[in-house]
């Protein structure tokens, strides 16, 4: 195989074949005709602008509008689910903000979700206890009570696909999740009503949070190891109104962007803890 396949510029295309075609590149011979066409276009546009300014009674909308895309398959194919990633810096902390689109959240126990091709965002949700391998705090999946406990005051309920984040030792959202085949888990509260909630753990780690920001629910993660305090402050500075913690450090999970490319949160991406659990959008 010839090494001529290696080189290609961003403005070139090449049909891949066993015979190894050369790139289809812009010809230098086209330079002068292009310049001439461009000059004629500029003159034409200028004339059109002068004419429309002086004589036209109303503007020509067609000259201003974007060309209409000829493909409208949205009515046939359901809106594609994907996750957007936005980077920001707040309180000196680099944050990644993942927001799922056209997707519905649920909770799931076990690592099967890591092979779920319909999922566009999956992050570990509740902690798993080191002593007995049980899920820490109350955990409800599809209306079924999987675990009981109120070790952490923060909660997330998912009822009819709608996420509610809050802080309460007892909340009617739990009863509603049980009654309406919903989902519920508990975690450390980080931000309530744009106010910081202090937490006992003082160490540094890469952090993740489930957060309400700009009226949307997003997963926010840090690129560096930070304390709970600094993480909460950076969330507030970024504009988060409510947030609870998600499993941080090298927790498993992934997101799928609009191009369908999957990005893993950790290199091996498969923590084998018993009762490992995820909040997943699909």
């Amino acid at each position, binding site marked *: 195989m010839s090494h001529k396949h290696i080189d290609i510029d961003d*403005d070139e*295309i090449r049909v*891949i074949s*066993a015979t190894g075609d050369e790139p*289809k590149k812009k010809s230098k011979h086209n330079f002068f005709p292009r310049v001439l066409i461009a000059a004629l276009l500029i003159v034409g546009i200028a004339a059109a602008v002068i004419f429309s300014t002086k004589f036209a009674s109303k503007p020509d909308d067609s000259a201003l509008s974007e*060309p209409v895309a000829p493909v409208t*398959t949205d009515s*046939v194919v359901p809106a594609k689910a994907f996750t957007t990633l936005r980077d920001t810096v707040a309180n000196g902390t680099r944050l990644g903000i993942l927001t799922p689109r056209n997707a519905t959240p649920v909770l799931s126990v076990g690592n099967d979700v890591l092979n779920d091709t319909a999922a566009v965002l999956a992050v570990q949700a509740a902690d798993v206890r080191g002593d007995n391998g049980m899920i820490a705090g109350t955990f409800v999946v599809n209306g079924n009570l999987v675990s009981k406990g109120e070790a952490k005051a923060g909660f997330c309920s998912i009822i009819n696909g709608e996420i509610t984040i809050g802080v309460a030792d007892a909340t009617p959202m739990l009863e509603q999740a049980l009654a309406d085949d919903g989902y519920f888990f508990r975690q450390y509260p980080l931000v309530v009503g744009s106010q910081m909630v202090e937490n006992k753990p003082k160490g540094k780690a890469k952090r993740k949070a489930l957060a309400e920001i700009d009226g949307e629910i997003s997963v926010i993660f840090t690129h560096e190891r930070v304390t709970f305090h600094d993480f909460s402050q950076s969330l507030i500075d970024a504009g988060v109104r409510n947030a609870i913690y998600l499993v941080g450090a090298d927790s498993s999970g992934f997101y799928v962007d609009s191009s369908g*490319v999957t990005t893993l949160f950790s290199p091996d991406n498969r923590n084998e803890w018993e009762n490992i659990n995820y909040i997943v959008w699909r």
Partner: protein
Amino acid sequence: MKFMSKRLVFTTSSEIIRVPTDAVVFVTADGNYSTITLADSGNFTLTMQLGQIERRIADMLDEDDNRFIRIGKSLIVNRDFIAFINPLRQKMILSDCRTFRHEVSASKEALRALKELMEKEI
């Protein structure tokens, strides 16, 4: 004789990936990694550069098979799934028009050349 589902095979020191040629929608590059996106919307990430992927594809294709097109430094697409190209918006949609739809981007010049290529084949 041609087999209906000829497979492209990629091997690294730790993995082997075998995918039907007609199920590969596009391949994107991210540094030393490449991600193959399939028609079931699943994907595989390989520790291979896109140039290596291109050479492997060229080696494995039949002589008359020219369905894959390298577009710039970061993209290989299967022309059978090209549904929409707009060079001005730097936008291309790869879809079977039934079950999946992926939007990808490339340079205006490359998409203009691709559009011309597709027009010649009408």
